[in-house]
């Protein structure tokens, strides 16, 4: 049995100024935490959503994973997202083998809380040859 312990890592609320500093740091670990903290607490959920959508194309796999998770959080917590933009982004991430799981989870959340269906967006992506 392997037992490893580490203390709690609080996901506290964050101001937009703090978040922007973390985004500008270029440090993937800071970037992913910033987008998660924004998506969990807001209050500017539209900003959190925009940043998460941008970060879906980040070169670091952990940032992309947490960007997908953040989109699920915004839909669950805030109950309002740009459904088309979020669904297209998450469906595109399903083709990213390193991010598939997080994208699938986030799609489940968005489908559940925003009453939508991924199949429509997957069909559209297929038709567009994406």
């Amino acid at each position, binding site marked *: *049995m*392997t*037992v*490893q*312990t*580490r203390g*709690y*890592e*609080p*996901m*506290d*609320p964050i101001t937009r100024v703090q978040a922007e500093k973390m985004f500008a740091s270029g440090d993937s*670990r800071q970037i*992913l*935490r910033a987008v*998660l*903290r924004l998506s*969990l*607490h807001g209050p500017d959920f539209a900003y959190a959503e925009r940043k998460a959508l941008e970060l879906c194309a980040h070169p*670091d*796999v*952990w940032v992309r994973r*947490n960007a997908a*998770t953040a989109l699920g959080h915004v839909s*669950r*917590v*805030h*109950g309002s997202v740009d459904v088309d933009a979020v669904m297209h982004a998450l469906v595109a991430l399903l083709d990213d083998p*390193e991010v*598939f*799981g*997080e994208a*699938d*989870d986030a799609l*489940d959340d968005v489908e*559940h809380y925003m009453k939508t269906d991924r199949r429509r967006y997957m069909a559209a992506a297929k038709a567009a040859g994406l």
Partner: protein
Amino acid sequence: MREPEGEKDEFAANEADTEPLGAVGPVWRRTYAANTGKHGTTVRGRVSREPRNGQEALDYSIRIKESSHARIGIDHGDDDAIVVFHRHDLGEFPERPGNEIFHGYVVVWSDLRQPMKNALLRARMVNLKGKVL
């Protein structure tokens, strides 16, 4: 030389893939990250509250689906609250197995998505009515 990100991830994915659905698996300690700001001790609107014993619930949690790292567990010290966990990071030592960081929130049975209910049922953690066993 620093290991490429993709190789680290492949290692982590292989570790996780060895654990079948419905099994607690090797009891390594995943790290629970409290949501001190959002998930407080009471439910506020759509924001679910944080579990009281998040680490313990995480230790005995199960994966929801094979394709994801999200987990679900029971906080027996919190009136058998059902807790959903999301993985956020591999921590500072990604080369070590089980070195994952999660946060979680309490969800009532009626608000669970079907794959979450299925995972709990498969693991015999609840009955068909959602009562914790």
